[in-house]
C-alpha cells in the first residue's frame, strides 16, 4: 500500500469514530499542554530571578567583610555583617588591581529625610561616583557624585525617583537643600525610576558620598565593596587578586569574603532549572497516561474492526500493511493531540504573560521539543501492541466476527 493511501486510510478510520478519537486527542493534548505550561512557569521563574540578579550590574565581584567558614557562596553572607572593618582605604587600594574597571565602596544605613515640612524614612547608600554606572542606574536630572577624595565627603545627595516625587512634587529638586539625619545636603541629581532591584528599592534610595555616610552612621566599616571586572573572563582573576590584596592589607588574615555575581547567578540558575525539570517530569507522567489511553483506544479499535481486518487480509493486505495502518492511526491521534496541546499550552502561557507582565512565562524550547517528542513517541510505542495484534489476527476467525 502506498504511504499516502496508508495515511488517508488511517485518517478516515480515526475520523470514522469521532467521539473516541476526540477523547484520546484531548487526553494527549492535556498532557502536552501541561508540559508546555508548567515548564513556561518554571522557566519564567528562572528568567525572572536571573533577570533581577543581572540588573545588579555586569561582571560584578563583591567583597563582604567577614570570612565564611567554607568556600563557595553561602546565602548567609548576603544578610549578616561582622564587626571586622572593611575600610575606604581598602576599597581605594583595589582600584590599582589589573582588569578592574570600576570600584565602588558601599556603606548603608537608614535615616530620616526632610524637606519643606515633609519627613520620611529613607535608605542611605554611601558610595562614590562610580556606584551609579556599576549598578546600571541612570540619572533623570543633575549629575553624579563629585569625583573627589573618597575620605572627604561633600554635602551632596542624589535622590531616588519616588523620594523626588513625594517630597518635591512638581517643584524642582536640583540645588535644594534637604535634611538627612542632622545634616543638610544639597540635591545634585535625581535617579530615573527603575523599580525593584532585589530587596533594595532604588526609587526610595538616597546616595551620598561614602565618607559622609560613614560619618552619619558613626562607623568606619563598609557594607560592601563592588568591583566591576573588565570582562567576564577576568572575573576569577579579579576575585583572586582582590582576596590576596585584602589579605595582605589585613596583616595576612583572610577576614573578607569575595563572591562573584556569576556564582550567585549560577546557583539560582541551577536551582530553578532543576525545578523546571522536576515540573516537566511531573507533566510527563500525564503524557505517559495519555499514551496508555491511546493504546486502549487502539485495542478497542482492533476489536471493533476485527471483521474489517479479516476483510483487508482477504483482499490481499499483508501483515505489514495492516500493522502500518493501525500504527499510523495511533501516531495520528498522538500527533493531533500533541499539536492541539502545544497550541493550548502556548495560549495558556500567553494569557499568563498578559496577566503578569513582569513574569516572562515562555516555555523553553527543550521542553516543547521533549513534550511533542514524548507525546508522539508514547503514541507510537503504545500503538505497536494493538497494531501487532491486528496484523496477527487469523483471517478466517476475523471474517466470521461481524
Amino acid at each position, binding site marked *: *500500500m*502506498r504511504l499516502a*493511501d496508508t495515511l488517508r*486510510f488511517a485518517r*478516515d*478510520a480515526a475520523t*470514522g469514530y469521532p467521539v473516541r478519537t476526540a477523547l484520546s486527542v484531548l487526553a494527549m493534548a492535556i498532557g502536552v499542554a501541561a508540559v508546555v505550561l508548567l515548564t513556561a512557569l518554571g522557566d519564567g521563574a528562572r528568567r525572572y530571578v536571573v533577570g533581577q540578579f543581572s540588573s545588579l550590574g555586569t561582571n560584578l565581584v563583591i567583597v563582604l567583610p567577614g570570612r565564611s567558614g567554607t568556600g563557595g557562596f553561602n546565602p548567609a553572607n548576603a544578610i549578616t555583617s561582622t564587626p571586622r572593618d572593611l575600610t575606604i582605604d581598602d576599597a581605594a587600594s583595589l582600584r590599582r588591581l589589573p582588569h578592574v574597571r570600576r570600584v565602588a565602596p558601599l556603606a548603608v544605613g537608614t535615616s530620616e529625610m526632610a524637606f519643606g515640612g515633609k519627613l520620611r524614612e529613607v535608605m542611605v547608600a554611601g558610595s562614590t561616583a562610580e556606584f551609579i554606572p556599576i549598578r546600571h542606574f541612570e540619572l533623570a536630572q543633575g549629575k553624579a557624585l563629585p569625583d573627589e577624595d573618597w575620605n572627604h565627603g561633600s554635602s551632596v545627595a542624589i535622590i531616588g525617583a519616588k523620594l523626588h516625587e513625594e517630597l518635591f512634587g512638581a517643584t524642582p529638586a536640583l540645588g535644594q537643600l534637604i535634611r538627612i539625619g542632622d545634616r543638610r545636603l544639597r540635591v545634585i541629581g535625581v535617579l530615573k525610576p527603575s523599580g525593584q532591584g532585589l530587596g533594595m528599592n532604588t526609587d526610595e534610595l538616597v546616595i551620598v558620598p561614602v565618607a559622609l555616610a560613614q560619618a552619619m552612621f558613626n562607623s568606619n566599616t563598609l557594607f560592601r565593596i563592588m568591583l566591576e571586572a573588565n570582562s567576564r573572563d577576568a572575573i576569577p582573576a579579579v576575585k583572586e587578586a582582590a582576596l590576596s590584596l585584602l589579605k595582605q592589607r589585613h596583616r595576612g588574615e583572610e577576614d573578607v569574603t569575595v563572591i562573584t555575581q556569576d556564582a550567585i547567578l549560577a546557583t539560582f540558575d541551577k536551582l530553578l532549572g532543576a525545578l523546571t525539570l522536576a515540573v516537566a517530569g511531573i507533566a510527563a507522567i500525564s503524557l505517559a497516561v495519555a499514551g496508555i489511553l491511546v493504546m486502549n483506544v487502539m485495542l478497542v479499535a482492533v476489536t471493533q474492526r476485527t*471483521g*474489517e481486518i*479479516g*476483510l*483487508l*487480509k*482477504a*483482499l*490481499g*493486505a*499483508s*501483515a*505489514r*500493511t495492516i500493522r502500518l495502518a493501525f500504527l499510523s492511526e495511533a501516531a495520528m491521534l498522538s500527533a493531533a493531540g500533541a499539536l492541539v496541546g502545544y497550541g493550548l499550552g502556548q495560549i495558556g502561557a500567553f494569557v499568563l504573560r498578559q496577566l503578569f507582565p513582569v513574569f516572562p512565562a515562555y516555555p523553553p524550547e527543550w521542553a516543547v521539543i521533549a513534550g511533542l517528542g514524548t507525546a508522539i513517541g508514547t503514541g507510537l510505542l503504545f500503538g505497536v501492541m494493538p497494531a501487532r495484534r491486528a496484523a496477527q489476527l487469523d*483471517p*478466517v476467525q476475523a*471474517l466470521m466476527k*461481524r
Partner: protein
Amino acid sequence: MALIELAGIERRFQLGDTTVHALAGLDLQITAGEYVAVMGPSGSGKSTLLNLLGLLDRPQSGTYRLDGRDVTTLSPDEQAKVRSAKIGFVFQSFHLVPRLTAAENIALPMMLAGIPAAERNRRVAKALKDFGLDQRADHKPDQLSGGQRQRVAIARATIMQPPLLLADEPTGNLDRHTGDEVIHLLEELNDRGVTLVVVTHDATLGARARRQLAMEDGRLQRDSARS
C-alpha cells in the same frame, strides 16, 4: 489445464478433547472457467474448503496448486500477494467497510496493492458503470440496498481481474429477486472466463452450476463431473 489442484488435503480442528476432521483426504481438480457449486449441510467442511481455496486457511497436510504453483508452502505475505492478484471473495454478509463510500470500497483491493490513484479512479468508474452503480458512487454502505451492497462487493472482488472468484452464500442475505440478480451477475462473469466457486446450501442455486460438489463430514460425497 487445471486452475486448482488439491491432493490429499487434511484439515483438522481441535475442539476441546475431540479432533474434528473438517477436510479429510480431499482430492479435487477445477479447470479454469468452470462454474462449481459446493453444497452440503453445515459442518460438512464446505466453508473450510472455500477458506482453503482462498488461502485464508492452511491444510495440515496435502498440496494445493493454484495456476500450477504450489501455494501451501508460501509465507503469509506471499499468500497475501496471491490473494490480491488471483482470488476474489464474495461474502454472505457483503463485508463492506462502513465508513467508506461504494467507490472507495471497490477501490480497496487496488489501494492495498499499491496501484496509483489515477488508474484506480479509471477502473472504479468503469466498474461502477458495468455494475449499474454510477448513481451510488458516493453512497456509504448503509445508504445502499442489499442488492446494491452485494453488487459493490462483487465489483470489489473483480476489480483486480482475478481468475478465481469464491462466493460464500452470496444470496444468503438477499430476497429471492435480488438474489437472482446477483447470481446472474456472477454467471455473466463466469461466461467471460472467470472460474466461479459458489458455496451454498440452497439446492436450486446449486443446481444452476454446471458442476456440483456435495460435501459431507469433510469428504467429497458426490462430484457431478465424475458421475
